[in-house]
């Protein structure tokens, strides 16, 4: 019985004397018994004075514990004359019941008070910042690529992949860009060591030929991927960037179909109908070739993105050149098609208002963690 809690709870020292020893208790038993009513009132007062559960427990033990007041009373019965025994027994039970009831009541009161106090929300700081679990991130290029892949798949396109190191044949020759063709200038090619037949692909277009070689028409494919141009780098140019090639081959394909498909595509990307315009553009593997401009989605009167023209150049495209179809083993009198190229890096920059393309491949976590 050296529970420190009982001391702390301010249980009066006299209680200790009550619990000391059963040996002495017999002498005062009758006096004790006569003090029963007082004892219950005393217990009730102590119980009512308890402000927490621990103190309450101590008081409860003091009276109804194994060596508590009630237990001592009952233990003393055997030494009493028989005629007193019954009365003391009843008194002890009454004391026990009274204490237990008072404890229960006090417990309930305390619990209610606790809830009431809790509901006051004391000490709660609504402005305290929550701990945030750190998270990983998907590269914005991955996010845009996935979105487009899913969009195209929903329109019946197959997603293809192709090698980043290409042969001259696939990158140029089969695409109607023969050796000494001035169009090779604009491709700023990285050449691999060797006999000059391997290059870092300058566009995703070589996969057009690979698709024609492996798939049967009619076909619809898109090819996302990394491409390389030997350009000096600045905020808007990098020597490595990402494109998505598209190729549709079918019978009776016309410019009108191309326009329709591109409009659908833009609706998918920008979530709304954008006014578009088609103008001549020169790419040797399409004929006729176009640049497709869309109304700048960012402004009404011209802005930095559209260089104040209100048009943004979005999609080079065109009808597949008959020589390309032939290179892919198809008869251009039987099959036609259109092709287009989407600048994924550019789309990412447009979407997130990124002012320096070099962030994309820069590997800085401060950039990556924003997506």
């Amino acid at each position, binding site marked *: 019985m050296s529970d420190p809690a009982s001391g702390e709870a301010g249980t009066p020292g006299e209680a200790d004397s009550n619990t000391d020893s059963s040996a002495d208790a017999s002498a005062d038993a009758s006096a004790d018994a006569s003090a029963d009513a007082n004892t219950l009132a005393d217990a009730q007062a102590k119980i009512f004075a308890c402000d927490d559960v621990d103190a309450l427990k101590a008081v409860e033990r003091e009276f109804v514990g194994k060596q508590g007041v009630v237990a001592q009373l009952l233990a003393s019965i055997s030494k009493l004359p028989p005629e007193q025994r019954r009365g003391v027994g009843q008194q002890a039970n009454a004391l026990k019941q009274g204490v237990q009831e008072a404890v229960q009541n006090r417990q309930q009161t305390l619990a209610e008070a606790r809830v009431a106090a809790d509901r006051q929300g004391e000490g709660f700081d609504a402005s305290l910042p929550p701990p945030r679990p750190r998270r990983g991130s998907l590269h914005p290029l991955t996010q845009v690529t996935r979105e487009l892949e899913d969009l195209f798949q929903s329109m019946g396109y197959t997603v293809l992949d192709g090698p980043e190191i290409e042969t001259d044949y696939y990158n140029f020759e089969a695409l109607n860009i023969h050796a000494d063709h001035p169009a090779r200038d604009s491709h700023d090619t990285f050449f691999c060591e060797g006999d000059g037949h391997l290059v870092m692909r300058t566009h995703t277009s070589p996969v057009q030929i690979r698709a024609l070689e492996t798939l049967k028409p009619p076909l619809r494919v898109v090819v996302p991927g990394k491409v390389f141009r030997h350009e000096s780098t600045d905020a808007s140019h990098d020597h490595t960037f990402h494109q998505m090639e598209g190729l549709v081959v079918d019978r009776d394909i016309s410019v009108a*179909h191309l*326009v*329709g498909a591109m409009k659908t595509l833009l609706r998918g990307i920008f979530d709304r109908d954008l006014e578009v*315009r088609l103008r001549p553009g020169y790419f040797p593997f399409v004929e006729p070739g176009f640049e497709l401009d869309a109304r700048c989605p960012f402004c009404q009167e011209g802005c930095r993105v559209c260089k104040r023209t209100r048009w943004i150049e979005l999609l080079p495209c065109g009808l597949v050149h008959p020589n390309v179809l032939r290179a892919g083993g198809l008869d251009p009198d039987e099959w036609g098609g259109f092709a287009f190229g989407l600048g994924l890096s550019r789309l990412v920059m447009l979407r997130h208002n990124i002012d320096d393309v070099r962030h994309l491949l820069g590997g800085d976590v401060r950039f990556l963690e924003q997506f």
Partner: protein
Amino acid sequence: MYVSYRWLGRHIDLEGLSPEQLCEDLTLSTAEVEGMEKFAPHLADVCVGLVKQRVPHPDADKLSVCTVDVGQEETLTIVCGAPNVAAGQKVAVATVGTVLPGDFKIKKSKIRGVPSQGMICSVRELEIGDDHDGIWVLAEDSEIGAPVADALDLNDWVIEIDNKSLTHRPDLWGHRGIATELAAIYHRPLKAISFDWPEWGDGAPYPIRIDTPACPRYLGLPIDGAKATPSPDWLRWLLLAVGQRPIDCLVDLSNFVMLDLGQPNHTFDRHSLDPEGISVRMAREGEGMRTLDGEERVLQPSDLLICSGDAPVALAGIMGGESSKVGDKTDALLLEVATFAPAIVRRTSNRLGLRTDASARFEKSLDPTLPERAAAHFARLLAEIQPDVRFPAPPTDVGEWTDPAHTLTLRPDRVRQELGKAIDDEEITAILERLGFGVEAQADGYAVAVPSARSTKDVHLDRDLVEEIGRIHRYGNIEEKTMLAQVAPPPKDPRRNLVRAIQDQLAGSARFHETISYSFVDDGLLEKLGMLDLPHVRIVNPVAQSENKIRRTVIPSLLSGIETNRRLLEDVRLFEVGKGYLPNPDDPNKQPRELHLAGLVWATAPRGPEARFDAHTFNQLQGLTTDLLDRLGVIEVQWRPAAPPPPWAHPAKALEAVAGQDAERLAVVAELDPGFHAALGLSGEQTSEVAIAEISLDAILIAPLRGGRYSPLARYPGIKLDVAVALPDHAAAATVREAIEKAGKGSVADAELFDLYRGESVGAGRKSLAYHVTLQSDKKTLTEKDEQKFLKRFEALVGELGGELRNG
């Protein structure tokens, strides 16, 4: 290419067509206009003034005080420092308030005590020339008070056309070509130009010989009595507008003809040429010449030369030689107008890095019929400017050229089908005719005669004619149509699915950031990682010489940014899914082997000694990789020491995961070789523990995968108990795990190592391993008895390992 609006006006009536309109229509029908600017905009801000009087400044020798009439009631007093100012001159005056180039605002001022009410300008101050010797003296008939631009009729706009969009159009590299497009767009006729020759004498034709098929045509015209005098104003202004500096009449005319008709040409000093005349031949090995820019050029047999006798005097189609430069005193000239093989010009100009206005045109395949018209144009203009010039002999016109003009058959239905619009025959033929094509009806459509200017490169197929019709009709007038096609589900794409699954897992609960890096790797980095000597695909013309290799794996690029990121973060987790390339060992000219890889790098500040035994990045990354492989459905994964470890790996702390004894390596997880930390900047405050994983997507794609079948749930409750063993330090954890399995006799559902402890209580050279074990049976509820049996067996087995069970 720069195009002058006024210059176009020499070829077509521009009445009612604003420069803006022109740009818009050229963009929509012909080629991309990149921009348009007012030419010499400051000419509109200064006005014509007449210097009425000029007196010396009282206090300064070099200054004069001029009284200038600018058409206002009062004359202005202007202090002027130019030596050439004189009374009676018409000059360009910037009055008070005018802002000149450089944001230079003219204010009322006092110069050495004399008030000055404006400035008399030089051409340099107006940014229309370099001449700063003195003020600009205007033509005598200039109207006093009028803006200079109006008085001199210099209102012009410069249109810049994207050269790339002219790659296939040699005919558009001159103003007349652009005017031809405008004629078709606006239904206006081209103005006629006379290409008739001026009269020539009956002297002997100049000797010219062609010794190579690389020069299909060479036309030489001797000219006598030409002088290198300044060009007339009209010529100077047009050249200035398109950014050409006027030099003298002969140089200027040569440029003018090129920019007017698109045909480059060249003038030689006939006196400096060998009497044997001109020969055109390929260069000989080791031959050299000095070009006009003063550079000594080493030639190759693939270079085409113009020679005087046998000595090179020009790099054909690219640049003249210094030896035959036309000087001020030259009066006997030979005008060269020729056609050269485009590929030859292109190769030489690329090899020498010598790109000129001429080479840019020749490489586009020029019309071989053009030299005659261009030469006549030059001769007529020269004769107009210098009436004294004489043409002593008829032009020498040699070469085995043929007229490329040809005829195509066009079926109008094909046009309508390919454009997707019902354009009627009438419009089809009208558009072609406006563009200069001849159209004649024939049984199966039309016979379309393609003019020579469009025949060299551009128009060869009926599809090319479809483009002509489409662009002049305007693509914008074609309404969209919906494509109908059978849509089948796309074929399964395991690789793409795998990539996505890996990305999602790593960027998700594993909290890695995805990065995408360059394919080029830096030599310095490779050296730091001991990878420099591995075979790499190499680039001949890298951005920087040290970045001439294509990565074999994504790991080096991932490690390259680790220091920078560690400076900012305690815990850096990066991954990349990308490709690596191994050179083809049999033939480096064949496509290299492509590897699909995922790389993970995890760098943190070092874990302290109190950290949990498996808190290190290495353990964490191995766990994560195990989990990843499991989620991808790979079964039978085992870890074993990586043999061999990758070059970047800690030689001992490197493990590989395989599914089956002889299977391909699925993944390797290792600590970064401790020897590489310092070189990667991971020292001092950036001291880190770095774990790396490389996962082979190719291997996963062929690995055994778990089927989709579920395992039935346990029917009887199992028993969970913890066991701890103390055993010698060298004993592997795997042996304890084996002992647990063995002791359980098939009833061990799970055994998880939760503590590894070394310390006094287990004794020196010993360690304690503690496991949560779950025993489970699918036949009955296990009891305390079973647990006791298990413990007894386990204790015996641990004893065999030299260890003992610990209590607790």
